[in-house]
């Protein structure tokens, strides 16, 4: 006899408790973002596209050796400047189709010249745009720039 009454009151109580929870959530700020208009800021250690600060590069070929998928290509030539020999990069390209974004090149670089930036919206219309990205070109990710926030400042050294 008492059980149905007990069940009735307990369910009414649980309804009130549940409604308290939902009204709290109604007035709490949303956890999702209005995505195309607002972007999620990326963490410092996010592994985006491979990027290069050309003046810092010492052409040690460490990144080329460590790259597990051979996504990087580097060639250089020696030039005479003021009676001193100096190495100069002729071509430094990055194949984003091969890259597995492991970050080993960033880890191994002695001068922190090569690094992974924070871009995450990297889709393009053609494969050709990803096959050989010229890392020496400062405008290489220009077409993706307006789509990504927190692009690190170009850091001349």
């Amino acid at each position, binding site marked *: 006899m008492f059980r149905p009454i007990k069940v009735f009151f307990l369910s009414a109580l649980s*309804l009130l408790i549940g*409604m308290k929870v*939902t009204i709290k*959530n109604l007035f*709490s700020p*949303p956890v*999702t973002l209005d995505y195309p*208009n607002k972007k999620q800021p990326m963490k410092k250690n996010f592994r985006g596209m491979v990027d290069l600060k050309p003046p810092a590069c010492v052409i040690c070929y460490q990144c080329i050796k460590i790259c597990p998928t051979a996504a990087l290509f580097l060639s250089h030539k020696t030039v005479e400047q003021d009676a001193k020999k100096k190495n100069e990069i002729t071509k430094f390209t990055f194949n984003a189709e091969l890259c597995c974004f492991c970050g080993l090149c960033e880890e191994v670089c002695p001068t922190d010249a090569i690094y992974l930036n924070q871009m995450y919206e990297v889709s393009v219309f053609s494969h050709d745009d990803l096959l050989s990205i010229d890392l020496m070109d400062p405008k290489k990710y220009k077409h993706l720039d307006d789509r990504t926030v927190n692009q690190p400042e170009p850091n001349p050294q």
Partner: protein
Amino acid sequence: MPGMGLLLLKGMAVLGFISTSAMFLIWWERKVSALIQNRMGPMATGWHGSLQSVADSIKLLLKENIVPAGADKLIWWLAPFFVVFPSVSAFVTIPFSEKLVPRDLNVGILFVTSITSVCVLGIFMAGWGSNNKYSLLGGMRSAAQIISYEVPLLLSIVLVVMQTGTLSMVEIVRAQAHGWFLLRPHLALAFVIYLISATAEVNRVPFDIPEAESELGAGYHTEYSGMKFAMFFVAEYTNLFIISAVAATLFLGGWQGPLLPPVVWFLLKAYGIIFLLMWVRWTLPRVRMDQMMAFAWKVLTPVSLANLLLSGWLMLR
């Protein structure tokens, strides 16, 4: 006929109100559900997605009308009209204010409850005509549920009629000039029973097993597309408004209130109850079919009968 123009104007005003109200309610429901689930909801069209329903209705107008193979064509075509017609007709007696009543019938509340019962017919026709197992199941469940919950619903309305001695909606509101019926204990219980059974009447969570998306694929309106689907949707949200408006009229003093104009008070009360129903909807899970029927026949009906008996005895004493 001289009164024809005015009648036409009234009808157009009601239809305009129904469509705007339904569109607003759909947007509001999406917004409330999103905020309760810590999402943002529609944001793209208009201010905070406020024009989303307009865009959706234009989309639905342009969509193709698909008739399923093997459908009972006549019944299939008629069903949406049978669902929309009662909910539009019920507006005849709803008093937005003392003057703003399409027509103050002396059987007002009886008219509303009887005309909204026709809705079951349309829902069952949609379920049968679609030639789809799930639609038929949804339609049968819906019919069973609506007919069962009509008993406690009417028993709680009878209490108000006993209190006032009239069936006219305007008279019922006038009888509450010195205090809402909600403030009297036996009518407060009737209000709770009314709200629960009205939630079941309009097939809303926690009583939405006829339209359960995961079990039945939206039940009786699975096979409908385009404008016919939109008609089911409009009818659903119009019914939601009607039950809230009736609750506001019977228990919350209708248009009466200080300072603000009567229409504003009435709409505030009606939309307040709608918000309460939305709040409950996004709090509770769905109940099982047998639990739902047991709740109607074993809990709500005896409680409302006992309430009726006790308050009738108290009134006569």
